[in-house]
Structures are given as structure tokens and as C-alpha cells.
């Protein structure tokens, strides 16, 4: 999900058009936005309570402090964050950034979600989006300026009260301080500050003055999340709330043939059994009850016959054979190079890789609560794209976009599953709410997926096959590299298609190929169409491109008897100092090549850039009776300025663990005759406590504007592990994920 800045403007234009087109409803006017900004929240001491009157004319909604900062009279400072918090730490990180320039007292800073109002779009993309590891990257300057503007208004208020020049005042930890040592708290000044004009120009701190940014800082939600007090979308409680579960078609897009709901309706607590449209033109049966358990029991009691005759029945074994066949022919050209030297090269590698479909499986099962009165609707759910979802809900419910209010809720994970241009689970919940209302049920309805619904529900990381032919000389110089990727396009048919599919090639399928190495590569791509919905999945294309690239490069190093670190440094030359720094840091801290490993243990190295950040891993692994085990990982991370080093450490640890999951037997979604074969965490295996290696994270110091951290830790883990396995076994690295016996 690399967005070119030039494309972002285009995307903004398109999405804006999409927002205003269709239902004929106007975009929320600026005035409405300001009302939204000021109306939400506290009864007393709201800052700026009447902010709309003083809003700076030249500033965009995303630049107005009114919508982002509230200071109570007791100094509690609440930062509204324009991103979904689902574990990645954006709420703590962006609150730190704003509090830094505001000189707030960190102990009094809180964070909360923004809603779907235009104020909370990503300032670079112009749409509501939490994704692409962009929260800090795209909003760093924005939140600094918001903090600085708010601070300037507080200083101006104090200057006015004390009748001194603003320049004679300074701020410190929630206080404005005068030349004579006179102090006024931000809480005391909040009312007067909100009457000040929002300044157009603000001067930001010199990074040397940072007190918060760069300091390892615990999460703002740590207490709530350690004590069961944190509320998520699934925990929303409304008067009369009903719960729905939907029997989904067994094959994507199939329809109901017959329903016998006699037994289902007899379950105590079941209110209605209704046929509802489901994703991809399918049809399902919703069981609505006064709680999840009766709804679930009602669904179990349904006697259903399905008509799957009109949809394709994908089968992953057959697909794999087809993909392998396709990979033997060149596809659409991404990079070109002279590959004629393949035939004359002294050494040659031919490799074919297979990567399975993967489910995101966030711990909080997907859910969406809808209160619909026929004219307007209110929704509650964890979503990475509340703007999109609001539009999808409006379309589904047949109301104007302005009649839909989305309340973004804290989400129990997501990994991409909640950024979905079809809004599948939101649309389904709206279909259920609409059907419930038509059936005379006048109550909000929460549609809740079981884990089985989630595992079987599609929108997977696409299955891929890679094929590579590499020619190289005795010194490991790569003479030609011919590479073919086969896999479904994630973006085809979505609003992103126009911008991220070029010459028929989906950028998300090829991101991470070739760079940073100076190698003559021809890369071509096939995008077969398959009846399996696919989606971005934490680190997207890099989940497979990094594996192919980094295991092949290691193979070249082994075949030419070179050190894999030295070969990488040689191939990247002096053009990639961030890559080199991350790699060297991981190597140095791990003791690679210097430290003696326990008997039977081996080193593996891999390096990858994604979302503008570079992560290098040095892994220590062993193989016991064919079973590989990862013992320790040392990370070298280059994400420019480390806003919250603690958050970077936890994100790298978490992404590495998710990368490890992809190596473990059972971490794959397979289909037979159109039906997903896995049901729950029994068949879809993910890493557990005993699988966890030691992970040490080291960050390259930098003062450049921060880059992504939620995803970049994932891609290099599997290849680093695989390269260690290859060195231990003397065979090639595993060619398939998850690993079989080696």
C-alpha cells in the first residue's frame, strides 16, 4: 500500500467526487464540521466552546484546533485522533506529537477517536483511512501544528489577561509562565483562549527541544486494557439491543434455495429469521435474537439448502496447479531487463514459491451495530475507513450520507480487515437492520460474526506463486533475474483501482520487489480472477515479495560462498544508507559472525523496506528432527525519527510474531469445491506463547520525519528464519509458506 504523494491528490479528488455523487447529498459544510468539533464532549470547560466564531478562515478543517483539542478547566487535555486505534499505538503517538508542541502535562493527556466528519480525514489522502502504516507518517506535521496553534492561543489569552507581550511568555507542562514567574494553568486559560483567533502561522519546536517525542512512553490505554474496562465495538450496549448472526452461503456469492426455520424460531429468545442479501450478490439468513447465544442456537437449528450453481467453486489445489502453469510464461511487464544472459551465466537458480490465502483473524470478531429509524442511522464499529463505511451504509439503507453517523469504536485488531472498500460486514449489518425494521422490530441490531464466520468469510491475503530464474557468476554478481508473480489483484474493482493499478498491474502485488538491490530484473505479473474475495493484510505485497527476494538473495550468497550480509551491502551500493544502517545495526547487536551459537543453531539474515521504513532481522534458529524453531531475533529498524521508541519496540515484536505465524504449519486458508476448509483457531493455526522467540529491537537514530512502523516488521521475519533453516540443512530455503518439515 505505497501511495505516491502525487497520487494522493488524485485519490482525494476521486473520493471527494464519490462522496458528493450518487445520492445528491452535499458534502458536510465547513460550518457543520465546526459544530461537530465544538459540540462533542464535556459540559464544562470545553475548549474552544464557541470555536466556530473564531475559526481561522484560511485554515482547512484538518488544521483547526477546535476539532482536535479540548481542555477542561481541570487541565485534562483530550486529543481527538483521526485514526482507528487497533493496537498500533496511534492514539498514544499522535497525542504525544500534539502534546509536545502544546507543552501539555502528559499525565493529563487523553485520546479519543474522531468520527466520520471531514475534519478527521488523513491529511495526505483526503479520506478517512487508517492504513499503510501512515498514521504518524502523514499526521506528524499536522498534529505538531495543531498543538502549536492551541499553545499560541493559550499564550495569547494569558498575554491579554496580564497585559504583557505574548513574546515575553513561555509554556511548560500545562502552564503559561510570565516573565515574573506568574503562572496560569491551561485549564484556567481555556475559556479565554477559545476566544482568540486561530493563528495561521506557527513556529514549530526545534527537535532538540523535544521533551515527549523520542521518549519511550506507555500507552494511554494500558490501564483500561489491563483491567477489562476498555470498551470495543462488540461491547456497545444500547437499550433494547438485539443481536443477529447470519448464516452465510458456503460458497462466496451463493444463494439460499430453501429455508426451514421452524426449529430456529422455536429457540427461546429468537425474534425473527430473515433472508438478507450478503456480499458478492449472495444471500444469507439472519437470525435475530435478544442475545448472541439464542441467535447462534437459532442459526444452528436452521435447515438450509443452498444454490451454489451460479458461482465459481474455487479449489486451492487446482488453483495452485493453474498458477504454477501461468508462472512459466511471462505476464504483464512491471520491470524490464535483458535476461538473455540467463543461458550463458555460470550459475543458475530456478525457484518456484507458493504462498497461501491468509485470514486476518483479529481477536475481536467482526461486528457492527446499527440503529436505523427509517430516515437516519447511527452505526458503531471498529473501522479503518469510517467515511467509506458511512457511504456504503447510506447506500444500503437508502438514505442520504448526511443521515448516517458512524461512531468509530476501539477495535480488537484488524490488520487490514477493517479497511474494506466493499464495507462487507457493515453493509451486511445494514441489510440486517433494514430487514429487521421491515419485519417490525424497532430496535438497534448488532450483527456479530462468529470466529467461524471470520475464518470462512473471505477477504484474505491473496494466494501467490512466484517463479524466478537467476543467473550469476562465481562472485555472486547477478547477471540476469527473470521473475514472474501470479496472484489475484487486491484493488481491481475497488475505487483504488484507477490509481494503484498501472498497465494492468496491481502495485500491491509487486511492492517490495527488487529494491534496494541493483540487479537486472525482469518482473512480469499475472492477475487471475478467482471467486475468493481478497484484501490487504498487514504489510500487503511485502508478505510474499520479501520472502522470495530475501531467500533467493541468500541462496546466491551461499552458492557463491559469500557472506549474506556482505553480498547485500555490495548489491545495494552506496545508494541506500538507511538499509545499510538498519542491517549493520542488527548485525552488530546480534553478534552475528562473532558470537558462537549453541550447537545446532544457525544464523539467518533478511532485510526489507516497506511503508518507507527498513527492518533488518538477524535470526537464530535450529532444526530438530525436521521441525524448524526460531529462538531469537535481533532487529535493526530505520523509521526515521522514533516518536515513541516503546511503541516501535512493541510493533516490531508483534509484527515479527505475526510473520512467524505465517511460517507455522496450519497457517493457511484452503478451499475445496468452493468451501473454505478451516473453521476456527483449531484448523487455522496462529503463533502461541511457546512459539515466541526472544526479540531485541534496536532503532537507528534519525531526525528525519517519521515513517511507518505498524507493518514493516512483518516481511523480513519469515525469510530471516528460512535463511537460517537453509544454512542448517544445507538445502534450499523452504519454497512454500507455511513451512512443511524441512
Amino acid at each position, binding site marked *: 500500500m505505497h501511495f505516491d504523494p502525487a497520487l494522493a491528490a488524485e485519490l482525494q479528488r476521486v473520493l471527494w467526487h464519490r462522496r458528493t455523487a450518487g445520492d445528491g447529498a452535499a458534502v458536510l459544510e465547513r460550518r457543520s464540521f465546526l459544530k461537530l468539533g465544538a459540540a462533542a464532549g464535556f459540559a464544562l470547560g470545553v475548549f474552544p466552546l464557541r470555536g466556530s466564531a473564531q475559526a481561522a478562515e484560511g485554515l482547512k478543517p484538518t488544521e483547526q484546533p477546535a476539532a482536535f483539542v479540548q481542555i477542561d478547566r481541570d487541565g485534562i487535555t483530550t486529543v481527538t485522533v483521526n485514526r482507528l486505534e*487497533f*493496537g*498500533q*499505538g496511534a492514539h498514544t503517538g499522535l497525542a504525544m506529537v500534539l502534546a509536545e508542541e502544546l507543552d501539555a502535562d502528559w499525565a493529563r493527556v487523553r485520546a479519543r477517536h474522531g468520527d466520520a466528519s471531514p475534519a478527521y480525514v488523513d491529511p495526505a489522502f483526503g479520506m478517512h483511512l487508517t492504513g499503510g502504516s501512515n498514521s504518524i507518517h502523514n499526521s506528524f506535521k499536522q498534529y505538531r501544528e495543531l498543538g502549536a496553534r492551541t499553545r499560541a492561543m493559550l499564550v495569547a489569552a494569558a498575554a491579554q489577561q496580564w497585559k504583557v507581550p505574548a513574546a515575553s511568555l513561555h509554556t511548560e507542562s500545562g502552564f503559561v509562565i510570565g516573565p515574573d514567574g506568574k503562572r496560569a494553568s491551561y485549564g484556567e486559560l481555556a475559556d479565554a483562549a477559545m476566544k482568540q483567533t486561530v493563528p495561521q502561522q506557527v513556529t514549530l519546536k526545534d527537535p532538540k527541544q523535544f521533551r515527549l517525542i523520542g521518549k519511550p512512553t*506507555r*500507552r494511554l*490505554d*494500558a*490501564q*483500561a*486494557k*489491563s*483491567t*477489562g*474496562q*476498555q*470498551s*470495543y465495538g*462488540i*461491547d456497545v*450496549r444500547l437499550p433494547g439491543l438485539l*443481536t443477529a448472526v447470519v448464516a452465510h452461503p458456503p460458497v462466496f456469492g451463493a444463494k439460499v434455495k430453501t429455508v426451514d426455520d421452524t426449529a430456529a424460531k422455536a429457540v*427461546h429468545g429468537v425474534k425473527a429469521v430473515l433472508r438478507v442479501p450478503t456480499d458478492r450478490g449472495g444471500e444469507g439468513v439472519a437470525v435475530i435474537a*435478544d*442475545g*448472541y*447465544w439464542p441467535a447462534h442456537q437459532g442459526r444452528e437449528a436452521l435447515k438450509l439448502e443452498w444454490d451454489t450453481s451460479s458461482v465459481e467453486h474455487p479449489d486451492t489445489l487446482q488453483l495452485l496447479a493453474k498458477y504454477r502453469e501461468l508462472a512459466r510464461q511471462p505476464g504483464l511487464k512491471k520491470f524490464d531487463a535483458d535476461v538473455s544472459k540467463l543461458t550463458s551465466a555460470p550459475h543458475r537458480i530456478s525457484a518456484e514459491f507458493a504462498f497461501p490465502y491468509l485470514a486476518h*483473524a*483479529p*481477536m*475481536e*470478531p467482526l461486528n457492527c451495530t446499527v440503529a436505523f429509524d427509517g430516515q437516519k442511522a447511527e452505526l458503531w464499529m471498529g473501522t479503518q475507513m469510517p467515511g467509506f463505511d458511512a457511504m456504503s451504509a447510506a447506500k444500503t439503507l437508502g438514505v442520504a450520507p448526511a443521515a448516517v453517523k458512524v461512531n468509530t469504536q*476501539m*477495535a*480488537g*485488531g*484488524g*490488520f487490514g480487515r477493517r479497511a474494506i472498500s466493499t464495507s462487507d460486514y457493515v453493509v451486511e449489518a445494514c441489510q440486517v437492520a433494514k430487514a429487521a425494521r421491515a419485519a417490525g422490530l424497532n430496535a438497534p441490531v448488532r450483527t*456479530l460474526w*462468529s*470466529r467461524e464466520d471470520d475464518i470462512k468469510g473471505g477477504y484474505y491475503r491473496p494466494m501467490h506463486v512466484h517463479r524466478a530464474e537467476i543467473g550469476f557468476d562465481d562472485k555472486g554478481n547477478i547477471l540476469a533475474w527473470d521473475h514472474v508473480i501470479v496472484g489475484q489483484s487486491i484493488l481491481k474493482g475497488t475505487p483504488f483501482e484507477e490509481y494503484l493499478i498501472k498497465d494492468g498491474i496491481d502495485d500491491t502485488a509487486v511492492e517490495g520487489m527488487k529494491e534496494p538491490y541493483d540487479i537486472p530484473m525482469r518482473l512480469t505479473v499475472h492477475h487471475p480472477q478467482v471467486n475468493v474475495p481478497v484484501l490487504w493484510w498487514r504489510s500487503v505485497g511485502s508478505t510474499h515479495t520479501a520472502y522470495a527476494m530475501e531467500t533467493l538473495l541468500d541462496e546466491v550468497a551461499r552458492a557463491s560462498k559469500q557472506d549474506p550480509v556482505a553480498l547485500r551491502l555490495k548489491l545495494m551500493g552506496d545508494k541506500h544508507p538507511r538499509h545499510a544502517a538498519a542491517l549493520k545495526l542488527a548485525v552488530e547487536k546480534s553478534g552475528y559472525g562473532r558470537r558462537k551459537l549453541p550447537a545446532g543453531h544457525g544464523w539467518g539474515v533478511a532485510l526489507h523496506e516497506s511503508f518507507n521504513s527498513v527492518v533488518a532481522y538477524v535470526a537464530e534458529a535450529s532444526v530438530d528432527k525436521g521441525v524448524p524453531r526460531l529462538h531469537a531475533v535481533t532487529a535493526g529498524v530505520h523509521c526515521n525519527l522514533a516518536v515513541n521508541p516503546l511503541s516501535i519496540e*512493541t*510493533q516490531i*515484536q*508483534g*509484527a515479527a*510474531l*505475526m510473520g512467524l505465524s505465517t511460517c507455522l504449519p496450519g497457517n493457511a486458508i484452503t478451499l475445496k469445491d468452493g468451501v473454505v476448509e478451516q473453521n*476456527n*483457531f*483449531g484448523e487455522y493455526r*496462529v*503463533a*502461541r*506463547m*511457546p*512459539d*515466541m522467540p*526472544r*526479540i531485541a529491537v534496536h532503532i537507528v537514530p534519525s531526525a528525519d520525519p517519521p515513517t511507518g512502523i505498524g507493518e514493516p516488521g512483518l516481511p523480513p521475519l519469515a525469510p530471516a528464519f528460512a535463511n537460517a533453516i537453509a544454512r542448517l540443512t544445507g538445502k534450499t530455503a523452504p519454497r512454500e509458506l507455511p513451512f512443511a518439515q524441512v
Partner: protein
Amino acid sequence: MPQLHINGKDVNVDADPSTPLLWALRDTLGMTGTKFGCGQALCGACTVHLNGAPVRSCVTPISAAEGQQVTTIEAIGEDRIGKAVQAAWIRHDVAQCGYCQSGQVMSATALLKTQRQPSDADIDKAMAGNICRCGTYIRIRAAIKDAAAHLA
């Protein structure tokens, strides 16, 4: 109407005796700290204590909990060990999305009730049933050891 003893209080639960304890807590009693993750005792998000021992509430019918002491995440902080575990969770910045952490805290507390100084193998065994997709295991392990040290 089944009567349960939850967090030190007797509570009447208006639900069928076969209803899993998880849904009685969440939907009937409005105690949403205990989480639904898999419904099959495969992920541990719903872990509560029955007489101090960890059980998966998603597969424990309320009939099986009658007459026993049920403790949930809402009250585990009133327990000396539970309180130490929660404090260690915060010190180590364990949670990310946090959704599984109620269950993790309940499993860790149950472990420390029986093993005051758990080894890595003890931790692996006691915590293997609790899935965290964010990958916080490394910090959970450190927090358990830290809590044990504080309790010693």
C-alpha cells in the same frame, strides 16, 4: 432462574441453564470485560476463574458454575495476585489492541496462584491456550515474571 456467585455477589441470571457463562456475563449481566474470541475454547479470550481455577467461559454452561465462586476481570484486581499482574501488565506496556488481555490476565493470575515462581516452561504451559494476534507474548512473559518478583 439460575443463581450464580460472581465476584463475591449472588446474582440471578435470567438465562437458560445451558447458556455459556460467557454470554450470561456479557449479554444478560452486561459485564463486557470478558471477551468472545472463538466460542470453542481455542483462544482463551473468555477466561474466568471458577473457584480460582481458569476456565473458558464460552464452553462452560451456567449450570456448571452454579454454587461456585466465579471471578471475572472486573474483580480480579481486588485479589492481591490479580492486582500485581495488572500492575505488571501496565509497567511492561503489554497490551496492543488489548482485546485478548482480559483472558491473558486471568490465565496469568491463575498461574501465579499455583506457581509463585513460574519457569519459562510453566508459563508456556499455562499461557499456550491464550492467543494474542498482536504478538504480545514476549511482554506477557516478562510481566508474569515481574509480577512474581513483586509478590515474592
